[in-house]
């Protein structure tokens, strides 16, 4: 791997060249990852780096990062309510803090702070409870008055005449954003350098099991590939892939939308989220306002959401930030998010030998990418969960050990 550094830039002659290979699929691998999003690529990286496995393939039906990894609004935070989730998401935030160095690739992680607005007495109580719970769990989160929130984010309107006045906000200062494409590319480049085969335009169409029921191969659009271990990291398509092994999942897939404005000079210093009136916003380094809207009401694989859903969010944005009322939106799009009944992910062994699944990240898994890859690789390599992901099984829906983060996750991220 050609290492990036200031010196490398200064001494560079000509083009950089491709940063990872485009290999033909081999007949057999020690492990196959289904899905070349951030989570799948991070899993392959950790399998190769931490567990000494080098015969690994990542099979991606389209192009890497073309799923939710490349479609999300990149908010990273760890102020979830329960201990299990605090541990899971803060594990990831700690990895984000070192990720550009780990990968030798600038993922543009920016800890600019995430402000979550409270508009009702109930919001105030819930967020203050979150602040206290987070601090007990060693996760930073603090309560700001409306005036303090405006000081932190000057474009914010806090006047009393609003339909949903801002009564205060919870601020996680270590939270922020990162560049989504760079995350996929950085992991791909680092995994490739460790010998991982990243195979694009290769859809998995079947999971083959031996007489004892264990995984023995996957069928793909580029032929059959033998492997004793399959890790499914297919986000919105998880139910479809798991059905290939006869496993029914506690998941539903919904379209979730985002949109970006025309680029403008830096005006927006942080990330602001409002679960109650449903809007979240930040400004990218290109200058676009990045705005997250809601999910559609019904399950769908259409990868586009309804216009009334994004209209609703834009109305909320205009109410909170009147300065933006005359801005134009450049693009909107949708991704398909896989939602569990308790809004927490599944990172676990499946009830089929050799099959593992990392899914259910729903509307908010980008923030977990580095932690999720680390934990899922551990689970696949050792055939048992790491203590951090041990509670995040499929069986929790049988045993009643739900980790209900609906309030922390809402849809907003």
């Amino acid at each position, binding site marked *: 791997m050609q290492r990036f550094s200031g010196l490398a830039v200064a001494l560079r002659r000509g083009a950089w060249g491709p940063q990872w290979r485009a290999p033909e699929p081999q007949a057999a691998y020690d492990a196959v990852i289904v899905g070349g999003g951030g989570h799948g690529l991070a899993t392959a990286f950790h399998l190769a780096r931490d567990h000494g496995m080098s015969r690994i393939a990542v099979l991606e039906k389209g192009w890497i990062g073309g799923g939710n990894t490349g479609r999300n609004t990149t908010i990273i935070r760890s102020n979830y309510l329960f201990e299990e989730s605090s541990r899971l998401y803060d594990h990831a935030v700690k990895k984000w803090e070192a990720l550009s160095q780990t990968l030798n690739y600038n993922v543009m992680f920016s800890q600019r702070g995430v402000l979550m607005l409270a508009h009702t007495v109930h919001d105030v109580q819930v967020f203050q409870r979150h602040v206290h719970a987070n601090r007990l769990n060693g996760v930073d989160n603090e309560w700001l008055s409306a005036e303090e929130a405006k000081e932190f984010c000057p474009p914010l309107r806090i006047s009393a005449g609003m339909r949903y006045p801002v009564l205060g906000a919870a601020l996680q200062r270590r939270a922020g954003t990162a560049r989504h494409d760079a995350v996929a590319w950085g992991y791909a480049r680092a995994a490739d350098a460790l010998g991982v085969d990243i195979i694009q335009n290769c859809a998995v169409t079947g999971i083959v099991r031996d007489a004892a029921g264990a995984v023995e191969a996957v069928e793909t659009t580029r032929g059959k590939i033998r492997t004793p271990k399959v890790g499914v990291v297919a986000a919105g398509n998880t*139910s479809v892939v798991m059905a290939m092994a006869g496993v029914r999942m506690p998941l539903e897939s919904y379209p979730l939308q985002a949109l970006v404005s025309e680029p403008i000079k830096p005006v927006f210093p942080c990330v602001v989220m409002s679960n109650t009136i449903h809007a979240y916003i930040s400004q990218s380094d290109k200058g676009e306002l990045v705005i997250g809207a809601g999910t559609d009401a019904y399950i769908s694989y259409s990868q586009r959401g309804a216009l009334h859903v994004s209209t609703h969010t834009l109305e909320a944005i205009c109410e909170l930030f009147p300065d933006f009322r005359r801005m134009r939106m450049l693009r909107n799009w949708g991704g398909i998010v896989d939602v569990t009944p308790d809004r927490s992910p599944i990172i676990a062994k499946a009830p089929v030998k050799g099959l593992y699944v990392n899914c259910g990240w729903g509307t908010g898994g980008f923030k977990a990418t580095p932690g999720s890859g680390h934990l899922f690789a551990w689970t696949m390599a050792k055939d048992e969960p790491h203590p951090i992901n041990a509670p995040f099984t499929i069986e929790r829906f049988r045993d009643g050990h739900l980790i209900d983060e609906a309030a922390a996750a809402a849809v907003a991220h």
Partner: protein
Amino acid sequence: MLLIPCPYCGPRPELEFAYGGEGGIARPADPAALDDDAWGAFLYHRSNPRGMHVERWRHVHGCGRFFNARRDTVTDLFACSWKVGEAAP
């Protein structure tokens, strides 16, 4: 926005409706007789297909009634809808 065929009122805009999730999931007649696996599957496991889906809708801002429909989850086009208690077409 979807145009949803209410079997009582005809096609109406999505905003008049509430989605009711996967259809055809009957509550077990004797829940106490189920083991944890079966009860968990009843509560939480869903088909979530990429393709035809049988689902429930409720025309909350219209006739107020529940009904069933079949919709393709890739194109979002409705194939048909039918009243509760009727056989699926």
